């Protein structure tokens, strides 16, 4: 019964990427292999992890532009420190998480104490962190040697992803924070009269996004081995926008289901689209257009279906009265 209802609730979030994958399989024979599908599924891992961090911020109404810069800076410092001090894989993992959390705390506390909109705080601090990536280690970035990249190989990558999933689900559904985030996001006034401090919750959301930025560092470093300094002012904003797009698709296809899963689906959809475009020989620059169109489409459909649902439930309430 429970399983059935869980499947039912998540049906759309599961069906959407499956449909698009099936379409891809139809278009491109080369993708009809276990390896190809596995490769796709793995491509969705890292963006989903960052998306979960962004989820907390978007849900609570934070504008966090700094998460991209935080990720780059944490990756660079963690990678170089771990290699310099020969700390091994565990060292990279711990450093990524700790550094990223520290930066999350820095942004969170700046918001908490300066009491200015998250948009301004995060852009300001983003500029600072970006500059630091260019100054620290002479702007050289980091390049991990293969022995530090075990977590990017199978089966470890899947294990790391499952752990991340569990952590995200825990914080969103099993921990007070997730509830408070939703409460403050939809009605800060009432949340506050019920003893939930909006300021604190928003601060915590920024900090927790640091945890996921750290996990994202681990996943991308293990996958690509390098992280280079941010070039240009707000050059890291693209990372934030990409993640937002995954979250938006996730929210739109989530329905009553599990948002953590839906965001992974969203991340997967964006990756499938990219591969699909390559398969049919379209320039990859059209990706952005297609993804934007997808988000708009999903958002419009979901807001209309929400409306429909409301109308129907009102009718029933009215009829009952």
């Amino acid at each position, binding site marked *: 019964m429970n399983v059935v209802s869980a499947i039912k609730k998540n049906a759309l979030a599961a069906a959407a990427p499956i449909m698009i994958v099936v379409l891809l399989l139809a278009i491109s024979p*080369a993708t009809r292999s276990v390896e*190809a599908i596995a*490769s796709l599924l793995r491509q969705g891992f890292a963006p989903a992890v960052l998306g979960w961090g962004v989820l907390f911020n978007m849900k609570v109404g934070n504008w966090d532009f700094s998460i991209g810069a935080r990720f780059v800076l944490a990756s660079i410092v963690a990678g170089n420190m771990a290699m310099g001090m020969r700390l091994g894989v565990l060292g990279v993992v711990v450093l990524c998480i700790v550094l990223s959390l520290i930066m999350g705390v820095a942004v969170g506390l700046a918001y908490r104490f300066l009491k200015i909109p998250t948009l301004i705080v995060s852009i300001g601090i983003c500029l600072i962190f970006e500059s630091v990536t260019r100054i620290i280690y002479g702007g050289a*970035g980091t390049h991990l040697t293969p022995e530090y990249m075990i977590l990017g190989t199978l089966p470890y990558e899947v294990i790391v992803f499952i752990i991340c999933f569990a952590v995200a689900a825990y914080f969103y559904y099993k921990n007070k924070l997730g509830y408070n985030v939703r409460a403050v996001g939809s009605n800060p006034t009432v949340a506050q009269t019920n003893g939930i401090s909006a300021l604190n919750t928003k601060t915590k959301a920024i900090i927790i996004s640091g945890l996921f930025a750290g996990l994202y560092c681990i996943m991308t470093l293990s996958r*690509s081995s390098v992280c280079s300094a941010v070039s240009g002012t707000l050059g890291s904003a693209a990372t934030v926008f990409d993640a937002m797009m995954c979250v938006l698709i996730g929210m739109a296809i989530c329905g009553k289901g599990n948002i953590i899963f839906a965001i992974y689906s969203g991340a997967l959809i964006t990756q499938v689209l990219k591969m699909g475009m*390559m398969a049919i020989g379209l320039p990859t620059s059209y990706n952005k257009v297609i993804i934007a169109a997808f988000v708009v489409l999903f958002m419009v459909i979901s807001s209309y279906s929400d409306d429909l649902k409301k109308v129907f439930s009102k009718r029933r309430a009215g009829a009952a009265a």
Partner: protein
Amino acid sequence: GSDSTSVSAGTSSADQSAPAQLSDDGNASSAAGADASKEEKIKIGMIWYGNTDAMGGTFYSWANHAAEILNVELIWKLGSYTTADELTDCENLISAGCQGIYFIPMDTSANLQLGTACQNAGVYWSISNRQISDEEILAACEANPYFVNRIYDNSYDVCKEMVKVLADQGIKKVCVLTGDPNDGMMVERNQGFADGCEEYGVEVLAESRLVSGDASANVNSVNNFLTLYSDMEGILAASGTAGVGEGIITALNASGREPGSVKVAAFDTFDGNQEAFEQGWIAASCGGYTSECLVSFLSLVNRVRGNEISDQVAVWSLSPLLITSTEEMEIFSKYVDNPDVQLYSDELIKSLVGPDVTAEDYQAVLDDWNIEFVKEAVGI
């Protein structure tokens, strides 16, 4: 001026014994050096994309070093990626009292815009690394009395050459990571690959835009190549810097394929390419056009000092190094992996600023650019 070979020769054992060399070097260069240090300090504005990748970091360090020798004050503006931003930087630098502006034009129109701003303010300017692709703009720039020189590298030929290296190894099917089409230099490289493939009978299976600075995006692109085109034998990359090259090699290593079963030809060198060469992943690499930045900068300094080498805009070109063997890569890595290596000696730098310097001197330095020169300069 002195004969260019002797200048180059004088650079061979570089920094360690600089004072000793100063006295027994050619007259012209030591005179120029002495002149420079006596002269009033000049201010040059440097509009530079960034100092975090190999070329950016190297030139940042070279230019600062040269400025110190030549008694020049530099004001850097880093991180401008659009013409509008470069123009803003240029105007601010002119206001800050710069007498010369050096930049890499982000697109063709930057030549016109920044050139006009410089002309209006009576400030000299020079560029490097880009052709001026539009006739009208080229004409306008040539007519600009404050335009000192332009230097470009013939990426196009080198890219074709890289395809040839792959074709010679029997490779018939490749995927291409193309460069940003807004960037004139990248357009040349993309075109060089395309024409090369046509000429040497190599089939392009798919293209994907490389993403500078986001390594995982490039990893995904390579993964998608591998998934969609199992018959792919090679990868061409218009640039390997800023995480692109590392991403490609990492993706190949993680793919489980036999090292060397896919051959990569990538413009620009990157971290770990020495090892990738040894493993057999890389068949051809190419790099080293920081020299033209330095030459352009020195020629600008020379003009600001009042030394006119020509009443026309000087035009020079440089051929980037094509690296096809592990040995060459080893030599080149010595230099390129370390931005603090000063490939050009203080004497040579001083010798390139002075009343007697000619256009041929500059071109000679550019012509001298080959792996043998690097080998000598790094002292192998």
